[in-house]
């Protein structure tokens, strides 16, 4: 019994309780299903807050560790090993925070097979939380691959017209990377005689030439998930076809699993290779930033616009991570959270209007602010947050990343930061272009179109406002007073950077 009462175990597997309850609720009791799922995800969020209260921010080590031998026969040494530290605490909270919000957003959007939907959603939460908490490579791999399955169903069953294509593409792309990582994991497990990441890091001394291969194998998995240019082509399809809640989780959490993977595994396990690869990663990140921004601007479909903006934003995160200094990494971690909030919010808002108009074409909208002032205002705030306006969350992260990248010894070239800064300006262009076309100017044709079929476009209702308010609070909080967030991660990041410094110095 002790096993299940550990905070992190409880946090990871609590959604399964919800799955179990959902099994016994008849499929036609849609509201009961929805409320159960929401309730369970809220309790899970509560557990994560409880974990936060027990989290000692000044301690750089793994905390609240749950560690048991799992498979220790036949030459295996696999542990059930969960732990949380400054690298993961915010991402865990982001996961448990976005899940109930996403579930609430499906209230009217998902009418078919509600039961299956909620079951898959809660299973997905188990997988995501597990990814961020697992400290044993084997356990991590299982959670990592497991997230694929429910997400595949969410896109494939409840998605748009090309959902099957998008779901399979998402699945195959992601799996392509992760199976190469599996081979590297097995190599590490044989070499180090353990799969526990902290032990492998302590042992160190992986031969330099092997390190690069292992680094590349892990990179294959994570770079596809992030996604880094030029491996991003699954992302627009998956985002556009996924149901709103799926897009929110995809952008908000699943992409972060990629960047988190770099932070948790690539950099500490293969420090020399990371330093060597840093300029290349910076190059690809910069291309991604500019490319994503440029392509966003060219989109006629607002959801696609937001999807490509993710490519650009995640480029910033990668740039910050591989600055390999404290500022860059802290900025990157915060930017992961920021992107989850802002882009998640954008997908939610796009979903809310789509539910009424059934179109996402930018050009048929116009003058929405007059008709739906609350919607317009919230959209404006979120857009500004996404493009990085000072005072809102996006600015803090991007600023720290650019500072870090600018002074980074590992990247070794300030041009990457300088060019990436252009990406911030380009973000302003595509975001404001979208806002202007949809919300300002003359009334778009879709307004009349909807009126002809019923009551016309309505403003946000209370449920939708309730979805947005928590996100808005965080957007302002991080924008105005980010210190508590940095405090949580700083000790762990600083120690990681310190452990890298010898490798960085050796290079330069």
């Amino acid at each position: 019994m002790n096993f299940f009462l550990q905070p992190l175990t409880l946090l990871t597997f609590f959604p399964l309780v919800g799955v179990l309850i959902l099994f016994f609720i008849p499929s036609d009791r849609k509201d009961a299903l929805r409320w159960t799922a929401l309730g369970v995800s809220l309790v899970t969020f509560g557990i994560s807050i409880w974990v936060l209260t027990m989290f000692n921010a000044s301690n750089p080590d793994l905390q609240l560790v749950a560690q048991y031998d799992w498979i220790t026969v036949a030459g295996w040494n696999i542990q059930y090993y969960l732990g949380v530290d400054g690298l993961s605490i915010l991402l865990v909270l982001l996961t448990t925070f976005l899940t109930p919000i996403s579930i609430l957003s499906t209230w009217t959007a998902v009418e078919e097979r509600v039961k299956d939907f909620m079951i898959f959603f809660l299973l997905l939460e188990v997988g995501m939380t597990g990814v961020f908490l697992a400290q044993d490579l084997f356990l991590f791999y299982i959670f990592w691959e497991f997230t694929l399955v429910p997400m595949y169903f969410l896109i494939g069953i409840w998605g748009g017209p090309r959902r099957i294509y998008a779901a399979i593409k998402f699945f195959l792309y992601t799996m392509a990377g992760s199976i190469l990582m599996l081979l590297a994991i097995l190599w590490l497990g044989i070499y180090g005689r353990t799969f526990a990441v902290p032990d492998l890091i302590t042992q160190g001394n992986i031969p330099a030439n092997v390190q690069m291969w292992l680094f590349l194998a892990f990179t294959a998995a994570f770079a596809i998930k992030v996604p880094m240019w030029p491996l991003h082509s699954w992302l627009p399809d998956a985002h556009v076809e996924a149901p709103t809640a799926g897009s929110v989780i995809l952008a908000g959490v699943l992409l972060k699993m990629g960047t988190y993977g770099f932070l948790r595994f690539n950099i500490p396990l293969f420090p020399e290779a990371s330093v060597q690869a840093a300029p290349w990663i910076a190059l690809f990140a910069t291309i991604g930033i500019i490319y994503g921004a440029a392509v966003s601007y060219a989109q006629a479909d607002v959801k696609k616009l937001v999807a490509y903006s993710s490519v650009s934003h995640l480029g910033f995160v990668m740039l910050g991570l591989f600055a390999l200094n404290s500022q860059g990494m802290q900025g990157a971690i915060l930017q992961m959270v920021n992107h989850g909030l802002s882009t998640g919010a954008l997908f939610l808002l796009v979903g809310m209007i789509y539910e009424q108009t059934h179109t996402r074409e930018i050009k048929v909208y116009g003058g929405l602010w007059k008709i739906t002032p609350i919607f317009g205002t919230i959209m404006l705030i979120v857009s500004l947050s996404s493009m990085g306006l000072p005072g809102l969350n996006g600015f803090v992260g991007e600023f720290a990343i650019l500072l870090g990248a600018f002074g980074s010894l590992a990247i070794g070239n300030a041009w990457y930061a300088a060019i990436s800064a252009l990406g911030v300006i380009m973000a302003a262009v595509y975001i404001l272009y979208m806002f202007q076309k949809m919300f300002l100017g003359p009334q778009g044709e879709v307004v009349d179109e909807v009126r002809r079929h019923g009551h016309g476009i309505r403003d946000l209702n209370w449920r939708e406002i309730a979805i947005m308010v928590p996100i808005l609070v965080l957007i302002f909080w991080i924008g105005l007073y980010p210190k508590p967030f940095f405090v949580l991660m700083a000790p762990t990041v600083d120690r990681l950077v310190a452990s890298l410094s010898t490798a960085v110095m050796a290079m330069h």
Partner: protein
Amino acid sequence: MTPADFYTVLPLTLLTVWACVLLLVDLFIPKESKGITALLAALGLALTLGFTLSQVGRENLGFNGMVVLDGFSIFVNALLLVSGLLGVALAYGYVKRMGLERGEYYTLMLFSVTGMMLMAQASDLIVVFLALELLSIPLYVLAAFARPNVESEEAGLKYFLLGAFSTGFVVYGIALVFGATGTTSIMGVFASASSDASGLLLTIGAALILVGFGFKVAAVPFHMWTPDVYQGAPSAVTAFMSSGAKIAGFAALLRVFATAFPSIATDMTDILWALAALTMILGNVIAIAQTNIKRLLAYSSIAQAGYILMAFVPYGNPDVAPVSIAAGLFYLVSYALTNFGAWGVVIALEKSEGRGLEISDYAGLAKKHPALAAAMTVFMLSLIGLPPTLGLVGKIYLFRAVIDGGFYGLAIIGVLTSLISAYYYLRVVVTMYMKDGEPETERESFLDLTTGATALLTVALSLVPQFLFAWASSAVLGLF
């Protein structure tokens, strides 16, 4: 013949006698209640399983070293008997529904299982040959059991002709090995081969044995018969032979190669490497084009044979071979469970005259029969090698052995072909969950029990695989 000899083959004898008696008893069972024969066959298998398990830990060499009882044979025999039980459970309702209910069906199955068990216990190449015939001939008959259905007859004939052909290879290989070493005893071959360096004859002999068994386990390029036979044979037969024959074939190969042929490992490794790679690539690639579920599973079983073949590649490296062969055994368990489950779902959807066998017939299954669709999803995930299923654990075990042996290229081919396999296995899932349709199913309790139990085991054993891991790795200790 001493009591010790007899003890070595006790379960085998029991099953043989049981099968012979059942053949007679069946005469007195009225036509409309042949279900009793099935239950009696199952009872025989269960009793034999009990005897087999009671032998755990014993080691014995019987009949002048012709037959062996060791951890390896017990592990394989237990798996074969469970396969037999699953095979009977799948057949029970199926043969009735398809109008194939004749008592000899179950007797033939029992004889085939005895052949398979003898195969696992053979420690002399002559006994290997004997066992091969004993397991194959009942299967030829079973494949044609749906006569006068032309496809089933064709399957039986094809299987028979190619099977006889492949047996020829085995016999010729055995003859060459005898020529090279002067003995047919596996231990004798090992002793003679390691003292004598002239290995060409031995290598050719070993290669020919590999070719013969390559037919049995459906390895590329000896797989041509597989899709037609698997499609034409009654589904319950296919389920049984695609698991049982494969387990027995691999068991014999594992024992013979690990015990008799380590001295020619340098030559054989390349051949096995190529065989494994080809089988994985071809099986998986051709499976993409299939629209019939039976053919899909046929190619899938070819591809799965490729993964098991990976376990052979490092067999000459004494540090890795035990891990690798244990991984092979473990994967056979995972394959057998998953395979039976998947065929169970196929049988549930199959209707007379070969209808209900297209993948498109699975459309809408998730809405109408969520449990059946969920079970099929588990099997498909397991065949791909995704969590939380036994297939993932098995594949990881295999890949670990291959990486440990230093065969990185083969490991990469292995994972990339798994990726290809995801495409066609997922197509079944897509059809069940994401397309609309009105599938009709035939349910009966034994069938449901089989699919349900295999699905649950596939998931549960992946979370607590310790026991199986430990058993598989201790089972191979006797070989070295």
